């Protein structure tokens, strides 16, 4: 059996996806990027293959994507994460009846992508060089509040009062604002909800720039945070489609493309 792999080397995490000849997802693996991301990327691939009992030789085509895509010379080709995300979401979105808009929040950027009816990128927007409203923002906020990233979702729903307003969109300024709110005796729950709404507002503004069409697919690591999902749905006034593995949609897209390229080249 032949396999095809997509490797998404992001700023925070490395994601690998494996598909079979039919384009079905065979497995995924996520690990931290760290500073030696080249080594970590190779290791991530090795671990995924080992877990599924696949030999490296069985992987016929490998496409790299994400910030580290150019530096991973073992790949057959590379593609921008925007195109890869579009392919992955279009494919994964079939199970939900098809998607036309993607909201992606990554470790250091956020994107909105609009797809045409065939799943091609019609338009996209990306935040301009600033960590506001990205995974990094959540990371910093969680650290200030002294809670785990995974707990943010629970805090969001456990507040007694209304979400507080976080005015600063800058990660650095928001940090001091959060500390100020804590010092004034506000509850962590209301602060967490406030942070989620602050990110949601920014993200929805970005999505409006490309145009929102149903269904809206939400992926990237922060899509695992149920509180953030609720806040974005609230701001968007629409339901979001959140896949089972929101972190690996882009890697999956790269793997699908690897499979298609392999068959196109062997024709």
């Amino acid at each position, binding site marked *: 059996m032949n396999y095809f792999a997509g490797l998404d080397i992001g700023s925070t995490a490395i994601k690998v996806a494996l598909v079979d000849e039919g384009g079905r997802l065979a497995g995924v693996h996520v690990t931290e990027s760290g500073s030696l991301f080249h080594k970590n990327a190779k290791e991530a691939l090795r671990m995924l293959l080992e877990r599924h009992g696949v030999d490296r030789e069985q992987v016929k085509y490998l496409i790299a994507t994400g910030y580290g895509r150019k530096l991973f010379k073992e790949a057959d080709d590379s593609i921008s*994460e*925007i195109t890869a995300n579009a392919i992955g979401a279009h494919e994964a979105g079939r199970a939900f009846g098809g998607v036309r808009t993607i909201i992606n929040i990554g470790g250091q*950027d956020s994107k909105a992508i609009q797809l045409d009816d*065939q799943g*091609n*990128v019609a338009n*996209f927007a990306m935040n*301009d*060089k600033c960590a506001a409203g990205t995974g990094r923002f959540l990371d910093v906020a969680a650290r200030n509040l002294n809670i785990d990233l995974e707990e943010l979702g629970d805090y969001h729903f456990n507040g007694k009062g209304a979400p507080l307003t976080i005015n600063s969109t800058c990660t650095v300024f928001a940090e001091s604002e959060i500390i100020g709110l804590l010092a004034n005796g506000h509850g962590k729950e209301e602060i967490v909800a406030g942070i989620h709404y602050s990110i949601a507002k920014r993200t929805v503004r970005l999505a409006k720039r490309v145009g929102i069409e149903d269904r809206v697919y939400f992926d990237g690591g922060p899509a695992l945070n149920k509180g953030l999902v609720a806040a974005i749905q609230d701001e968007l006034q629409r339901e979001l489609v959140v896949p089972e593995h929101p972190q690996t949609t882009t890697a999956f897209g790269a793997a699908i493309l690897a499979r298609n390229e392999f068959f196109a080249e062997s024709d």
Partner: protein
Amino acid sequence: MNASPTPEVPAFQRSRQARESEITLDHITDDFDGNPAAMQYFYDLFRRVFIQGEALPHEGKLIGTTCIQAPDELIYAVGATPVRLCNGSYHYDQIGADFMPAKSCALVKATLGMLHSATRIPKTARPDLIVNPTTCDQKKKSSAMIEGMGYAVYDLEMPNVKESEEARLYWQRSVRQFAHKLREVTGKKLTRQNLKKAIAKTSRAQAAFRQLHNFRKSSPAVILGKDVFLITNAFFFDDIDRWSDAVEKLNAELTQRQAEGFKAAQRKAPRILFTGSPPVFPNLKLPVLIEEAGGVVVADETCSANRMLYDMTAVDEWLVNDMVDSLADKYLKPCTCPIFARNDDRKRRLLDLVASFEADGVVYQALAGCQVYEMEQKSIAEALNAQGIPMLYVETDYSPDDQGQLSTRIEAFLESIKTRKRKAAA
């Protein structure tokens, strides 16, 4: 004793602004194969001026300009030399931040920073006069700041609209006033003869540029946009006759290239029209990223290239005053700068360029803080999208730290163009 710099590497070459220029030049020369032989003149020129800090000569008085709306013809006519001061250096941008609010346009800040710096690059003599056309608010307010640095500054008054007859007359008066000012500074009177000679000089440069511009219609491309931007940036400070010689030489080489079927880019390379805030050396970040990602910039609508040189001066009036008026018209009418209240000409120009250069998409650069370009973004995008032309809007500045993010966006844009074309072909 302190270690002194080794003789081979003078201290200047290790300065931040020299380093910045060197990185840009290295990208332009080393990241691409098949650079035209005639480009060597420009590569060498930039190395000498920006990296080695070579001083630039000039004839007569030196007149600094901060915008293409200051007519070079008038300056040459009175025996003076113009030098365009618009600056593209991140180093000077940071120095200029002392004068302007932090969120202002990098180009204005860098120009102020350069003028303030004792080690100005390009290294020219101190301008005898700086002409500052009253365009955007940031440029307008910089007049007093430049004056505060001890320079003589002249506000060349521009109207806020360009279609009305009042605006036309107002601008004609402004240009006449400017001619008087030049007489005051140089002691030389404008005559029919010296103006005709000056127009011949600039027309030769414009003709050479127009020929170069037309080569960019070929598909596959025979020259890359990064080289064209470098050439037009050289026009800011290079001796105009030497510049025209070098461009004519390049045109001869491109004629040959075209005959031989030379390819400067892949046949399927997405063809990009560049618009918005001007790329000014060393900030050629965006055009270089586009071409490194496999696109080719086939035309532009910016004041550091096409808008500066495309429109030829044809003045056939008999009296010198009428000649000046007609020259003024030539500067106002075709200007597609977003400072004007209404700017539908810019949409028409862009659509026209897309059609005649067979562009597949448009990249729109707005320098953060350049409000007029930021504000026009939406209407331009709508006008282009209505014709099925995709546009990528990029807000950036002079700092190098957004290159990773920008290259992702550019690649995705180029990939989506390729998909679109494949689909259209199928």
